[in-house]
């Protein structure tokens, strides 16, 4: 009996931490989502029940932001995965200067997304940007990257890919290093080609790592905000408005915290569902 009290006592700090840092904000957000809560009042002015949820779910703009987020995550994460895997395979052998190159490869990932976005904002500037300068010198069209459709969409993907490919590279490199060499060597002795080794040995053994890498990146890319805030501000029109940008707009531009929280609760459920799907289809190690 005494032991149970000691266990309870020892668990109290972590339970308190869990409640105050995770459960309370979630519960409070849910409460706010059921009220009209203007930012400028800083309090709930009326109880609106599920009205905010109905408003959000019937808003074409919300569904547009969902579609943009889905497209962004799919394209950006796919490109990051393919490039990251390519680089990981390239560096999975002895290359002179490999360590230096590997460290340089990781640099974009270490920079703040805000800084990366600022750099790219000026690199892709229509008049003073290096990219357009190069394009013009080859007599190629130099578009306005952030203010025209579909360039704006591809520009933000490019920035995300530039910053986060190193993350994929890092995880997949670690995965490649952990693969035992014996089956590969045995296959090579038996006459397997490099492609066959990759297709039938490396890739299956790397699968669990690939799933983790993709899942981590997808969860992060679903929350894309910094790049959009700095470069396109969700525009032109609402062409690059992600789910998080939509939430930000509701909260700090429209100053409607209730609607913003309702969208956030929906987003939490969405992420939770993706997590469940991941658990269901996770490959066995």
């Amino acid at each position, binding site marked *: 009996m005494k032991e149970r009290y000691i266990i309870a006592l020892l668990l109290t700090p972590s339970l308190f931490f869990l409640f105050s840092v995770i459960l309370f904000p979630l519960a409070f957000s849910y409460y706010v989502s*059921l009220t009209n809560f203007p930012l400028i009042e800083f309090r709930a002015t009326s109880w609106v029940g599920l009205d905010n949820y109905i408003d959000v779910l019937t808003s074409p703009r919300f569904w547009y932001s969902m579609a943009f987020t889905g497209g962004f995550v799919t394209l950006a994460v796919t490109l990051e995965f393919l490039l990251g895997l390519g680089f990981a395979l390239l560096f999975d052998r002895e290359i002179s200067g490999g360590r230096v190159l590997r460290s340089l490869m990781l640099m974009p990932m270490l920079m703040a997304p805000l800084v990366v976005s600022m750099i790219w904002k000026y690199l892709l500037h229509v008049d003073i940007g290096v990219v357009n300068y190069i394009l013009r010198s080859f007599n190629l069209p130099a578009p306005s990257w952030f*203010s025209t459709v579909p360039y704006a969409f591809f520009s933000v993907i490019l920035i995300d890919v530039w910053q986060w490919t190193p993350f994929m590279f890092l995880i997949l490199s670690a995965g490649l290093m952990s693969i035992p060499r014996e089956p590969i060597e045995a296959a090579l002795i038996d006459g397997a080609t490099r492609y066959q080794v990759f297709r039938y040995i490396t890739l299956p053994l790397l699968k669990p790592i690939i799933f983790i890498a993709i899942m981590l990146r997808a969860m992060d890319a679903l929350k894309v905000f910094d790049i959009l805030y700095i470069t396109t501000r969700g525009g032109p*029109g609402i062409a690059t408005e992600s789910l998080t940008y939509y939430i930000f707009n509701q909260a700090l531009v*429209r100053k*409607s915290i209730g609607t913003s929280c309702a969208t956030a609760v929906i987003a939490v459920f969405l992420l939770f569902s993706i997590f469940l799907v991941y658990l269901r289809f996770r490959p066995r190690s």
Partner: protein
Amino acid sequence: MEMKSKISRRSAISTVAKTGIAAGIGLIAGALGGYFVGTTLKPVETVTIRETITRTTEKTITIPTTVATMISPTEKKVEFEGVELKVLAMSDPPNIAFEKLAKEFAEKHGMKIQFEMYDWEHLKEKIMTALPAGVEYDIVLVDEPWIGELEKYLYDMEKLMKEYGDPALLDFDDILPGVIDSLRTFEGKLIGFPMMTDVRFLAYRRSYFEDPDNKRKFRQKYGYELKPPLNYYEFFDVVEFIVEETDMPYGFGDLWQKDYLEMTFGDWLYSLGGRFFDEKLIPQYDSPEGIIALRLLLKSLEYGPENKLELNHELLNVAFFTEKVPMVLQWWSVTNEMLDPEVNPVIDDTGFAPSFHNLECSGMMAYAIPLTSPNPAQAYKLLEWVYSQQNAAKLIGLGGTPIRKSTLQSEELRRQLRIPEQWDAALLTLQRGLWSRPKIKYHGIHDEVICSWVHRVMSGEVDIEEALRRASEEVKREFEKAGVYR
């Protein structure tokens, strides 16, 4: 072993899913229960709207003296020693001029002063969260469109003037009337101390308008003299001429980035006699004037550079400096860069003219004192001194814009300007009239909705009528939900 692992994972997923579903049902049940049981927490105040349009037709500006007579000549003694003031401001030239003079005042009186400076967009986000949350600042910079949202957190400046003001130092009657009118709420409360007069006027390349060949061709084509445009007919003739008859690929640039469109669209709308709202605060974006205004805005966009949809203050200046566009509509407060030869490579070819809009947007900014300020008297005395008659010339020298009639009409100060027509352009724009953005409590909803729908039209995503109709419906619905019409 394998079997055991399978069952274990499945049961784990099942438990998680069941918990999630149960939580979801519980939350929805809670919401419904609360909806039926719950009562209104507190009624929302009803807002009525009155339009603020300042128009001064005479050359010499006059204002009623009621404000000046309200100020009591008896001044309370204020202690400064050991006080520390906290200021939330913006990092542009007029604010930096204020910072320099404020530090001078603080040093003279043994006070400490601490500045937090942001660009406009971040200042807006900061102030909208800091004031409602009760963060203690002594002085905050408030832009005109934020007045309706923030006024309940700010002192009535006239009350402070009455209590602590020195009428001789203040010389309130000398302040430009448009400036004062723009800083009042609909109920007449003066929320701040005017820190700059901000209107927009046209910056243009002189050479295109003075070239004899251009002048001749223009006269032949349009039947009148080539000059900076003063109305819409002249504007569209001039931009068409520049694009078709000169080496310039683009004719004009304006603030077309999404965040600025309430003002940019509003210039066309108010000039045509339209309004954002009727007296009951019902949105009127899709009125006949609104539709024509957006059509004209779109027509002007045809003459803009490739990156027209992202033109903010900074990029608009870049477009002008890189000789992409020969005419831009720019705010007075940011034209300082145009007067700097190190920044503006075409400074010797730069001229200023009044806006071609019939009514131009008023963009006054004010230093206000929050109700949470621990030192309102000291904050007031500092503002009064910085913006006093005696410091007016000094403030201009440091990069400020005039707030006083005597400054704007001073021949001596004009002689010191790099491009003296700048002040003529401002004065003419002020005389033609200003429209003020609606000072309503839910300005943010209107601002965000109109900006995003207009930008969607500009990017070709949706047509004019549909966009304005849907914007009107959306704002009305949001206002209904917020209890504005209750």
